């Protein structure tokens, strides 16, 4: 690939992969950043919830069953 074609491709990728309209809904199949961010937030939530449960127990420790 010629040098200038390389930079053109990068310019296109930057727009088409990361920008543009993103639609959501049950009928939409798309790999958009937004979905992955929500997944990331959910992971954060579940790890915080686990902490919550451990803290709630007066004998919190690795041997205890959470809940």
């Amino acid at each position, binding site marked *: 690939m010629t*040098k200038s074609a390389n*930079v*053109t491709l*990068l*310019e296109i990728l930057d727009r088409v992969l990361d920008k543009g309209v993103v639609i959501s809904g049950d009928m939409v199949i798309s790999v958009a950043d*937004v979905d992955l961010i929500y997944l*990331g937030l959910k*992971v954060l939530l579940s790890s915080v919830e686990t902490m919550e449960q451990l803290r709630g127990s007066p004998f919190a420790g690795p041997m205890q069953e959470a809940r």
Partner: protein
Amino acid sequence: MIAHAIVETDSPDEFAEQIQKSQDAHPARIDANPENVEKGLAKLVLTLIELIRQLLEKQAIRRVEAGSLSEEEVERVGETLMKLENKMAQLKELLGLKDEDLNLNLGPLGDLM
């Protein structure tokens, strides 16, 4: 193939390099694949620790700038921050994580750090 959009520059290579660099520096998307969840959680925890470490460091520097720390305090704070930084470096190496891995992309809000 491309009808209208044109890219004009005298330095295509340098821009290609910098664009590639900026894309690489962007943190990897969080992978909710169950097999990777553990590593993902470790990454998440370390990211938060790194955030706090950076905040503490900035706080300390501001106080040094304002001259509100005694010589002793500067020495003590500096030593603690140094230990913290070294600890983080060890943990990163242990888990095979790079600086760019310890970040969170908050979509429209940009990166966490």
